[in-house]
């Protein structure tokens, strides 16, 4: 399954991230994970959120340049070697990763590794064939209550 990541163009200056989170807070959008890539004076903020469509609309309305990018959100074991199994597979199959980041779902149990690759659908088939589960946007937004129930 394909998930969606929000990519937001951002000038590298104080307050930019705050203006993004403020818009998302008002739109009642929940953030699952975030990374920021910068090149000197500008960069891209990448977000995994529970409601990408609403988030995109709200941010665009606020004048920001936003793109929804298909990514793979792959479920991995949160234990030593969990991520390695996945990356070794991607390496072996020659899948080039443009960007990647992860977050934990259940401590010491499950984590999600988000990868942005050139051929998303091909990579999706590949990882699923090798026993990994991929999450789509709905699955990603559904997991949160489950996460809190553990405590």
């Amino acid at each position: 399954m394909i998930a969606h990541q929000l990519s937001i163009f951002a000038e590298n200056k104080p307050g930019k991230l705050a203006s993004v989170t403020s818009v998302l807070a008002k739109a009642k959008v929940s953030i699952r994970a975030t990374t920021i890539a910068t090149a000197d004076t500008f960069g891209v903020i990448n977000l995994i959120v529970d409601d990408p469509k609403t988030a995109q609309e709200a941010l665009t309305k606020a004048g920001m340049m936003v793109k929804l990018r298909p990514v793979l959100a792959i479920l991995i074991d949160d234990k030593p070697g969990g991520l390695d199994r996945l990356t070794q597979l991607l390496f072996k199959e020659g899948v080039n990763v443009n960007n990647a980041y992860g977050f934990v779902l259940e401590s010491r149990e499950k984590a999600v590794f988000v990868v942005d690759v050139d051929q998303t659908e091909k990579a999706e088939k590949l990882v699923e064939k090798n026993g990994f589960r991929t999450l789509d946007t709905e699955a990603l937004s559904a997991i949160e209550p489950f996460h809190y129930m553990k405590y």
Partner: protein
Amino acid sequence: MYWEKELETRDRADLATLQLERLRETARRAVRSHHYGKAWTDAGFHPEDIRTLGDVGKIPFTTKDDLRENWPYGFLAVPKDDLVRMHSSSGTTGRATVIFHTKNDVDAWTNLVARCMYMTGLRKSDVFQNMMTYGLFTGGLGFHYGAERIGALTIPAGAGNSKRQIQLMRDFETTAIHIIPSYALHLYTVFEELGLTPQKDTKVRMAFIGAEPHSEKMRKRIEEFYGFKAFNSYGLSEMNGPGVAFECPEQNGMHIWEDNFLVEIIDPVTLEPVPDGQEGELVMTTLVREGMPVLRYRTKDLTRILPGPCPCGRTHRRIERITGRTDDMMILKGVNIFPIQIEKKLMEIPGVGRNFLIFLEREGFNDLMHIKVEVERGFFDGELRHLEALRRRIVEELKSDILITPKVDLVEPDSLPKTEGKAVRVIDNRET
């Protein structure tokens, strides 16, 4: 003290007689050119309409656009065979203007540069190091020929390569230099890096500075750093290049050579002449040029005539240092750049949005161009590497067009200030 005493100190009435005679002759020559032949017929002007110097107002103005539209030969008043030299205004593809000279034109120009340099104290015994770009730019060859005319030993060092410049100055005991003011300040830092002081380690006693707007404060700074006299110079390729106006030892205004040029200061809006002392646009007419006479050329430079005689004894009036432009031309490191050139280039690049803003900054002693460019909304695909590639492409394309390497920042669409009417494209943060 004077290169041509009689001409430089001729009384104003006699100078006016000479000017009238030369103006009439120039008009008769100019009408043979394609441009003036047509433009004057259209305007109902005839060279014989000039009976007094006041009649100069009857001649239609000439603009840079006229020069461009008649590129390359439309202003020639002599057969091409009689030409020995061409120069082009600094700057760039598509916007360049070309000026042609006969042998007599080059002679007259050289004589004027020699007159300027002699006036400031350059002599046969001097060693003159010319740190200007040679080539199409008039500043290099113009000064080179002038110094040789005086008989000074001339070192055609060209621009840049600071360590070699310093080496040349030391090896050959350079006494006079021609240098862009911002480069003079930069070169001083190179002296420091080498553990040298110009006062002790060189014999340079004077500098000619120009080709770039600079303030009195900047000149004073250069003089303090180097412990020499720095003389301000004004010129433009349409009027030969250097040698149009130059400071005398009084360093109070630049004598503009009225035996070679007819000078008017006009109100750029009403186009009417303004009295001496009042600021306006400098309008110039060549009085001796054969190959390519240019009459009532609107320089777009703002200045004023300094009223009153100069203690040096020269009767040619003085203009104040240029205070600005009536158009949006920028001068950076001696290169003339119009915002429209940058706009044109930017708009050709896919991914560039609607608006951009140019900042001119001074970092240390270097002038920098910094451009903020809006990204087109549809271009953004969330990938940083594509943005970075766009930024690099903008830098490269501009560099090849305007000869200056700008610093480029990408910004969000519609994030730059929009103005009513004419867009403000340039913010000059350089101290003046």
